[in-house]
């Protein structure tokens, strides 16, 4: 038993090295003074300076953030509704199609989602004159559509675990259905909704393929900007940009993880306290 464990620990060590060496190497080379991205030429922060004074990068970042905030918010609202619907309303006409529509975007290759959205927008413009120009609005609509199903998956899983008795009690005490949802259901599943929003936000912020098909002239998001530069090869300023993004997202995720674990622990402690007081 002991020897096998040593083997497992070695594989684990190599596995994490495999995960993190490329990222660490990229971070180290972002401080490379040399213009050649892969040859070390001394320490420098000049790529960060040139990056932060590059208006194109800043504009792209703000466009990406704007799209990500709006699409994550709408996707969370729609995705939560779909998750609640699937977990609570077990019988309604078209449920099979609905649950299919909620799963399909998860496995649909992004190229296909991207192309079908683009064809849809082009034909709609032809038939009904909308959307006039592709860009911010078409990207946002496409992002909402494919990120809402991730929210649905998370919310649905949480809903199935949660106790229906509280909702039924509120109903018996005379709450109207929408009051039950706002006063009971949503607060109970709020950690899942928050994770869903965060996931939708990062999916939108990160997306290249679907964005590249649904964008129009003048709407360059940050991933699209990186994509067009990276296709030509490795450059030191992208290393710097990558470092900033990886560190920001990493710090954000770790912080969110810690906050959520604490909140969950507090909620469990409160629940236990409430039950003990009842005894």
């Amino acid at each position, binding site marked *: *038993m002991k020897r096998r464990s040593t083997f497992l620990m070695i594989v*684990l060590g190599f596995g994490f090295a495999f995960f993190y060496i*490329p990222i660490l190497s990229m971070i180290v080379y972002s401080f490379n003074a040399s213009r050649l991205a892969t040859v070390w030429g001394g320490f420098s922060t000049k790529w960060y300076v040139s990056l932060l004074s590059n208006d194109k990068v800043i504009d792209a970042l703000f466009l990406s953030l704007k799209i990500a905030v709006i699409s994550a918010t709408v996707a969370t609202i729609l995705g939560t*509704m779909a998750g609640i619907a699937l977990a609570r309303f077990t019988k309604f006409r078209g449920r099979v199609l609905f649950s299919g529509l909620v799963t399909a975007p998860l496995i649909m290759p992004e190229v296909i989602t991207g*192309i079908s959205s683009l064809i849809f927008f082009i034909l709609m413009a032809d038939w009904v004159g909308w959307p006039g120009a592709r860009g911010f609005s078409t990207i946002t609509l496409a992002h909402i559509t494919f990120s809402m199903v991730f929210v649905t998956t998370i919310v649905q899983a949480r809903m199935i675990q949660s106790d229906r008795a509280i909702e039924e009690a509120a109903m018996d005490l005379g709450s109207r259905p929408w009051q039950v949802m706002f006063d009971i259901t949503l607060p109970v599943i709020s950690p899942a909704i928050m994770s869903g929003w965060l996931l939708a936000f990062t999916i939108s912020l990160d997306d290249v393929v679907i964005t590249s098909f649904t964008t129009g002239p003048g709407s360059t998001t940050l991933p699209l900007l990186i994509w067009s530069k990276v296709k030509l090869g490795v450059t030191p300023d992208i290393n710097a940009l990558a470092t900033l*993004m990886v560190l920001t997202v990493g710090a954000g995720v770790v912080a969110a993880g810690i906050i959520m674990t604490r909140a969950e622990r507090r909620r469990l402690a409160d629940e236990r306290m409430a039950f003990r007081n009842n005894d």
Partner: protein
Amino acid sequence: MSTEGFSRWFDRKGWVGLVIGLPYVWLVVLFLLPFLIVLAMSVATNTPTAPPFSFGGEHPWINLGAYERIATDGLYVRAFLTSIFNAFVSAMLCLLIGYPMALGLTRVSKSWRNILLMLVILPFWTSFLLRVYAWMGLMGKNSWFNGLLTDAWNFLVPIDWAVKSIPMMNSNFAVVLVMVYTYLPFMILPLYASLERLDPNLDEAAMDLGSRPAQVFRDVTLPQSLPGIIAGGMLVFIPAAGELVIPTLVGNASQPMIGRLISDEFSQARDWPMAAAIAVALLVLMVVPTMIYSHYQAKAEGSK
């Protein structure tokens, strides 16, 4: 309808209708409808108009020409085979690396386990594009990593085989390597979930009855984690088969994968019916692994 009547109708039916209806209509209009258009387009005829397709005309209404070309033209057949091969090899390698990692995760102390699980999930949250990009930096001809591998190669092989650098970029090898890197968490997490649920008493019982560790693994651990293996394998295979970003950045342009072919047919050749037909064919190809996945996923959750 009076206000009170409306309010009663809203409580009984309208509210539920709203909660179901809004996301339903959204998905029908922005997901199902576009997909049906693609399905229809795959049997349309390519024309030099804008948009570049038409139904009917001198051709029959349903033009299966695009599907015929997929089945007969070597370019498309090869692209499908390359995609399946790359996705399959990636899933296998993810399993070989991911299984001992997942098993290792179940053996470390609880506080370590949470930190390590976080470290498995963390790359998933950081930009996918940048994770691919990080490997472009490592695989390039002048990089320290390539230099290290080149030195190791030159040290191990006879002097005639010595190389100046290892040509890693723009090959199927690079595509598989980066796919393993980006999709490994998809393998580790379901495997960990199914291994964590196993009862350690079973291992001990098998040991007490005289099994050696290797036998315990083969007869007890492995069979019980089969649902996790298959779920993880499909979670890697399905996105890998339709991958576009990785083959475009590190792959060989003369050996395209399906995703890249769809994109090229659409944007460069402007043959929309052809792109649509390849897309439909790819989806048909995905149906089988998806069904296997949901079968084993349900099984894995059922045994909870």
